[in-house]
């Protein structure tokens, strides 16, 4: 991809990231696809006319803090489960498990519906990013209501404030279950949350000691939940009120104090910016740029929008086409949006994303999906190909032969002819691939669309 006129190397040295020329097609595509999911040709054309600053503020301005899709009714149930599981007989327990499983599916359907239909793909992409940063999973949390409430928090602060989000997450009931905070008591504290909040949520590995973890775990004791309604509950008798020493500072710290100590450390902004860089720019963060953006992030009191604006107008961003691998959600949601497929039933999509390694609401562990090249291994690559082959009916006999049985019947069918009318060959090549195909597929019409979707570059963004 070409750089926009404004970030030619000379201008890059002199002027930094701001620039006055319009984005053009390739950069508009990059901005929309990276910040959200695959953009439609008409949206690319629309943004191509805008200068980068204008385009980015338009994207950021149009970011809602609540989902437009109506959630399942049960999310408002105040009764989560009986206070004591011991009071339930085996049949009741089985029934509760069945209900949790069913609701877990409905919850995933709700979020995927939002991703497929949202007018602000950026909001959903950021929500997914934070889900993969502040990881919790249905596998352990069990109660889908709690995962829903966490998702609401993640979306509310998706482009809000990182400090508020971190304080919110530390008291979030799903997180308190997931990292055992709810069981963290004075005397023999459970270190799980204290460790991961430092290693994975703020500082990064190597910037704290084992003693810091042990002391911080004491500060979080007593932060628990009410098991009946799933609300945060402070249990003063389980809280260790004694003096603690964390990062060389001593005091009668509670959890919020420790969070503030973490936010005061410069490593936190650098750690989060590095992760955002890997998600939105390239697998190889530029350390000088990370430092610049991290300083901006701290100067802006951890407001997320100014940081994202700086990231999406940086020269490195517009020089990175084809360097990132599409996640399963990027691939499946993006393709269905691009070709205007309105799935009558989302369960095949849930199942496919799980097979491809990205089951939303159930990341593999507290570090989340590693992403990048690791999305592609022999198993997932062949499933990605089968999904696309099936969708584009490139090979009806063989393409579907290895698909999981649930995906074989009545899978989604895109209207390729109308896409081809709106965006014929030359347009489609630019709209669908981040790098030019080599060789360019022969012929034209819908056969070209199939060939482009099956090009290895379609797996990149």
């Amino acid at each position, binding site marked *: 991809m070409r750089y926009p006129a404004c970030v030619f190397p000379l201008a890059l040295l002199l002027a930094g990231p701001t620039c006055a020329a319009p984005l053009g097609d390739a950069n508009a595509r990059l901005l929309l696809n990276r910040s959200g999911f695959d953009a439609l040709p008409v949206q690319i054309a629309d943004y191509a006319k805008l200068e980068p600053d204008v385009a980015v503020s338009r994207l950021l301005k149009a970011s809602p803090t609540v989902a437009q899709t109506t959630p399942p009714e049960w999310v408002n149930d105040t009764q989560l489960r009986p206070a004591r599981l011991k009071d339930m007989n085996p049949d009741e327990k089985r029934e509760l498990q069945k209900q949790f499983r069913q609701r877990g599916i409905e919850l995933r359907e709700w979020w995927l519906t939002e991703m497929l239909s949202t007018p602000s793909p950026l909001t959903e992409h950021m929500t997914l990013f934070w889900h993969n940063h502040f990881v919790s999973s249905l596998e352990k949390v069990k109660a889908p209501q709690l995962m829903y409430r966490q998702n609401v928090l993640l979306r509310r602060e998706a482009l809000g404030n990182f400090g508020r989000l971190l304080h919110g997450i530390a008291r979030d009931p799903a997180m308190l279950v997931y990292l055992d905070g709810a069981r963290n*008591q004075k005397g023999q504290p459970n270190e*799980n949350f204290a*460790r991961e909040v430092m290693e994975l949520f703020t500082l990064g*590995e190597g910037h704290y000691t084992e003693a810091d973890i042990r002391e911080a775990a004491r500060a979080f004791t007593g932060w628990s939940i009410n098991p009946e309604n799933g609300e945060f509950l402070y249990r003063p008798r389980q809280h260790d009120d004694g003096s603690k020493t964390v990062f060389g500072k001593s005091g009668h710290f509670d959890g919020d104090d420790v969070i503030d100590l973490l936010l005061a450390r410069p490593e936190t902004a650098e750690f989060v910016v590095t992760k955002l860089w890997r998600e939105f720019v390239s697998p190889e963060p530029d350390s000088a740029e990370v430092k610049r953006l991290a300083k901006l992030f701290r100067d802006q009191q951890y407001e997320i929008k100014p940081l994202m604006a700086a990231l999406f107008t940086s020269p490195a961003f517009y020089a990175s086409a084809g360097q990132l691998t599409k996640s399963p959600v990027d691939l499946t949601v993006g393709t269905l949006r691009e070709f205007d497929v309105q799935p009558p039933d989302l369960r095949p999509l849930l199942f496919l994303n799980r097979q491809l390694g990205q089951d939303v609401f159930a990341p593999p562990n507290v*570090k989340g999906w590693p992403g990048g090249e*690791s999305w592609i*291994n022999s198993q997932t690559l062949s499933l990605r190909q089968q999904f696309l082959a099936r969708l584009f009916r490139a090979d009806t006999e063989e393409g579907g032969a290895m698909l999981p049985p649930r995906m074989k019947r009545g899978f989604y069918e895109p209207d390729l002819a109308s896409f081809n009318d709106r965006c014929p060959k030359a347009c489609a090549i630019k709209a669908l691939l981040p790098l030019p195909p080599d060789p360019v597929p022969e012929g034209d019409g819908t056969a070209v669309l199939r060939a482009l979707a099956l090009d290895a570059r379609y797996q990149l963004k």
Partner: protein
Amino acid sequence: MMNRRDVLKLGAMAGLVALSPTVFAAALSGSDAKPGRLLILIELKGGNDGLNTVVPYANASYYALRPKIAVARDQVLQLSDHAGLHPAMTALLPLWQANQLAIVQGVGYPEPNLSHFRSIEIWDTASASDEYLHEGWLTRVFRQQPLPSNTLADGLIVGSPELGPLAGGARAVVLSGNNLNGGGMQMAQQAARTPALAHILKVQQDLNVAATGLAGPAPQLNTTFPEHGFGKTVKTAVEALAKNGHIGVLRLTLAGFDTHVNQQATQQRLLKELAEGLAALQTGLTELNRWNDTVITSYAEFGRRAAENKSGGTDHGTANVHFVTGGAVKGGLYGGAPDLANLENGNLKYAIDFRQVYATAAGWCWGDAALSPALGGSYRRLELMRV
């Protein structure tokens, strides 16, 4: 010349469902050279609690450190006057009695890291604690000393999508049930423009090779595999091996060992799966006539804290116990029994460097030549192989 698929067809036509193991294995390897030795790595993901796996049941400190979750003395399966197996592992006893199960205690490394992610990276890359490497240790072994040209894949991976010790260049193929296929991408020898594109093209090529070699229906085996998750993992691996034995490594993962809370029930279930899975591996490999040229070893990012926490679980720890088994293994207890009177920040000190375990297994499979560069130094083998 008859190829492998013809052999299978012929078998089916003649109704020879139950070929004898030897004949079966010989038929499968066809006219090709005999496969080399096989390394099977079993990852106990999450950090298995070694103290409740091989229990120091004669040690009063153990019961003092774990008032709620200790395994009672009269419950353990006694291996010696001080060590006993967790009672869920009865399926391992025949291997122990056959003197083919080595138990290596106190496996770890200097300056231990208690992060799951950093510590498994250290194990997977065989690095020092303060050294950051990007290639798996087996990738480095096979770069130094490539496997024979008829090798289908350097490694098959079952039970996890992560390449672990095979990351960064080895020809590794992730198996899940029988979902291998050749894929439909038309992209022969296109020039790679970005590292991400180069990666996809490489995976496609490995996939094509493995798909060709592992095509066809699952062979009929006499071995019964357990129904649980790890049993299925073992079944997938053994069936792939039955189709084509020219594989260097199998890496199988059993996950769920991060037992911070209510450890007992979870670990009980996982250790049962592990023991039954190992027993099924022994049966399956014996049927394929591969047991005597296979070495199996377990590994994990770390063991767990010596003392239990207040939630009936254990937090992250350091040194751990691991199993080594195979037809050529000299069974018994190796390494250092846990020294509970001499803990460091509540954690066990290590007695055996994990790279010694790697050197023992990989050195037996492929010789010592490639080991020093791959392991970043010379590590003394443990004397637990017969030949």
